[in-house]
C-alpha cells in the first residue's frame, strides 16, 4: 500500500503545483490585498476555456497561456471596477463576476466541454507523462514566483502592498488605492487564468465546471503555506509557502484517500482542513 501511495505521489505534486499557481493568485488578493475575491471560481474556468479554444484554433500551447492570463486579468479588472467604481462590497463583486463568467465561459467554448488531446496537439504538460509535467510545472512556477517577488519590490508593487496593509494610510500618502485594488485583482486573476489553462492541458480538457470550489483550494494553499512558513514576511518564502501549501494539500488528500476515507467525504474533509488552518492565524492576530 505504501508503494502504491509513493507511486501516486508525483501526480499529487504536479497537481499541487498547478493549483499552487491559483494559490499564488489567491495569495495576492487574500494575503497581500486583504481582499476575499470569489471571482476565482469563474476566472479559473475562463483560463481553461480560453486555453482550450486557442489550442483548438491552432495557437501554440505557450501562447494559449498568455491568452488565458489576459482573459483572467480582464475578469479581475471587472471585479475591481464593480468594487471600486460601483462601490459593491468585495465579496458580492466577486460573486457577481463569478456568476457572469459562467455564461461568458459558455460563450467562449460554445459548449460545456472541450477536449484537447495530447495526441493531436503539442501540449506543455499532460497527466499521461507525470515526470515531464513536473519539470514544466516547476519551471513555470519558478518564473512566476520570481516575477511576483520582483514586482512587489517596485514602487507600484509597494503601493499595492501599502493599500492592502492600511488603506487609509496609503491614501494619505497620495496612493490611488482604488487603482491599486484593481491592479491587485488583475494580477491575481491573471495568475488564476494561467493555472486554469495549465490544468486544462494537464487533464486534457476544459470543462465549464472546472472552477467549482477553486477558491477553497486556493485558500487552503495560502493558509497551509503561511503556517508552514511561520507567517514569514519575505515574499520569496511567502509565495513558495503557498506552493508548498498547495502540494501538501494534495498529498494530504491522497494520504487520507489511501487510508480509506470515502471519496464521498472529500469535500467535508477539505472544508474542515481549511477551517482548521484558518482558525489558527486568527488566534494569533488577536493575541498580538
Amino acid at each position, binding site marked *: 500500500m505504501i508503494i502504491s501511495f509513493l507511486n501516486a505521489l508525483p501526480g499529487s505534486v504536479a497537481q499541487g503545483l498547478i493549483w499552487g499557481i491559483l494559490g499564488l493568485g489567491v495569495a495576492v488578493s487574500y494575503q497581500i490585498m486583504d481582499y476575499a475575491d470569489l471571482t476565482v471560481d469563474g476566472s479559473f474556468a475562463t483560463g481553461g476555456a480560453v486555453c482550450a479554444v486557442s489550442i483548438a484554433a491552432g495557437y501554440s500551447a505557450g501562447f494559449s497561456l498568455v491568452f488565458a492570463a489576459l482573459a483572467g486579468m480582464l475578469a479581475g479588472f471587472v471585479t475591481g471596477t464593480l468594487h471600486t467604481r460601483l462601490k459593491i462590497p468585495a465579496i458580492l463583486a466577486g460573486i457577481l463576476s463569478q456568476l457572469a463568467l459562467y455564461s461568458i465561459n459558455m460563450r467562449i467554448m460554445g459548449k460545456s466541454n472541450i477536449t484537447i488531446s495530447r495526441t493531436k496537439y503539442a501540449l506543455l504538460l499532460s497527466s499521461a507523462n507525470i515526470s515531464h509535467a513536473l519539470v514544466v510545472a516547476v519551471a513555470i512556477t519558478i518564473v512566476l514566483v520570481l516575477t511576483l517577488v520582483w514586482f512587489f519590490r517596485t514602487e507600484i508593487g509597494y503601493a499595492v502592498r501599502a493599500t492592502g496593509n492600511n488603506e487609509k494610510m496609503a491614501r494619505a500618502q497620495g496612493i490611488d488605492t482604488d487603482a491599486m485594488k484593481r491592479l491587485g485583482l488583475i494580477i491575481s486573476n491573471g495568475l488564476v487564468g494561467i493555472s486554469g489553462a495549465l490544468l486544462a492541458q494537464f487533464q486534457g*480538457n476544459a*470543462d465549464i*465546471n472546472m472552477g467549482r470550489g477553486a477558491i477553497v483550494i486556493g485558500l487552503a494553499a495560502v493558509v497551509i503555506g503561511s503556517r508552514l512558513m511561520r507567517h514569514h514576511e519575505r515574499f520569496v518564502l511567502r509565495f513558495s509557502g503557498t506552493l508548498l501549501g498547495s502540494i501538501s494539500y494534495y498529498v494530504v488528500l491522497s494520504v487520507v484517500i489511501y487510508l480509506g476515507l470515502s*471519496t*464521498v467525504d472529500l469535500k467535508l474533509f477539505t472544508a474542515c482542513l481549511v477551517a482548521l488552518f484558518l482558525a489558527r492565524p486568527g488566534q494569533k492576530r488577536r493575541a498580538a
Partner: protein
Amino acid sequence: MTQKKNLVLAMLALILVFMLSGCNTPAPAPTPTPEPKTVFKIGIVQLAEFPALDAATQGFQDALTEKLPDQVEFDLQNAQGEQTNATTIVNKFVNDKVSLIMANATNSVKAAREATSTIPIVGTSVTDYVKSGLVESNEAPGGNVTGASDNNPVDVQVELLAALVPDAEVVGIVFSSAEENSEIQAVEAKAALEAKGYEVKIYTVADSNEIQTVVTKACTEVDAFYEPSDNLIASNVPTMANITTAAGIPVITAESSMCEAGFLATYSISYYDLGHKAGEMAFEILVNGADPATTPIFTFDTSNLTLFINQEVADALGIVIPEGLLK
C-alpha cells in the same frame, strides 16, 4: 449621495430590462396558415453536451422530420449539466404550451415530470425508468412519461472485459455521486462482475476536479475499470484516460463515444438509433393519439449492439484484440 445611488440603481435596472428584452425574441405573430396542417412545437431538453446525448437528440429530430416534414418546430435547449437549468428550461416549455417534451438523460426527464403532468414527455438516454421513479412500470408507464431506455445488457460488457483482460481480478467502477442513473448501472455491473468471480471496487467523484485524485488512487488497486455512461465521466474522459492508460489499466465502457474519447472498448447501443426510436414514439403520441400511460418503455436487445475498440488505446496498453472478437 442616496439620490445618486438611486439613480445608478435605476439605470442599472433599466439596462437589465433592456438586456433581458433584447434576449427574448418576440413571440411570432400567429401566421395565417392556409393549409390545415398543424405545426407541432416540441421542446427538447438535453442535460449535458457530449456525443452520446447529442446523437440521441439528432436521432429524435431526424425521426420526426422524416415523418412530419415541415410540421415540427424544435426548441432545443441544453442544460449544460445543471439540474437547475433543466428546471428553468422545462418551465419555459410548459409556459410556451409545447405539444410534447423530449427529455434527454435521467435528470432532465425528472425536471420535465415535475413541471407538467399533462404535456406528454418522451425520454431517452435513461437507463431504468422504474428505478429512477419516472414511471410505474416499463410495460404500462401510467403517467405522461414514456421513452426509450439506454440500458444495455451489462453481461455482454463483462464478457468483453474477460476477453480483453483475461488476467483481471479486481475491477473498479468510477462514477459521479450526483448521478442516480450511474449508480443504477454501477450496482448492476457490480452484481454481474461478482457473479463472474471478480472483486469490484466502487469509487465516486463529486466533480471534475476530483477525478485526477480518485482515479490515480483507484489505478493502484484495480486491474481494469468498467465505466457506466456517467455524464460527468463522459464529459471528462481524457482526464481519466490520461491516467489509466499511463498506468496500463484498460477501461471497458458502456457507451461508444466514451470509447472514442479514450477508453479501450465497449459493446454499445447506438444513441442515434435510441433517439430515433424516441422520435417514432413521439410521432405515435402526436399524430396517432397514443397515450404515454400505455406506451411501453422501449429497450434494445443484444442484437442491436456494436463492438467499438479504440485501437490507439489498445496499442498503448499492448493489448492484442482476439481474432474471435473482430467479426
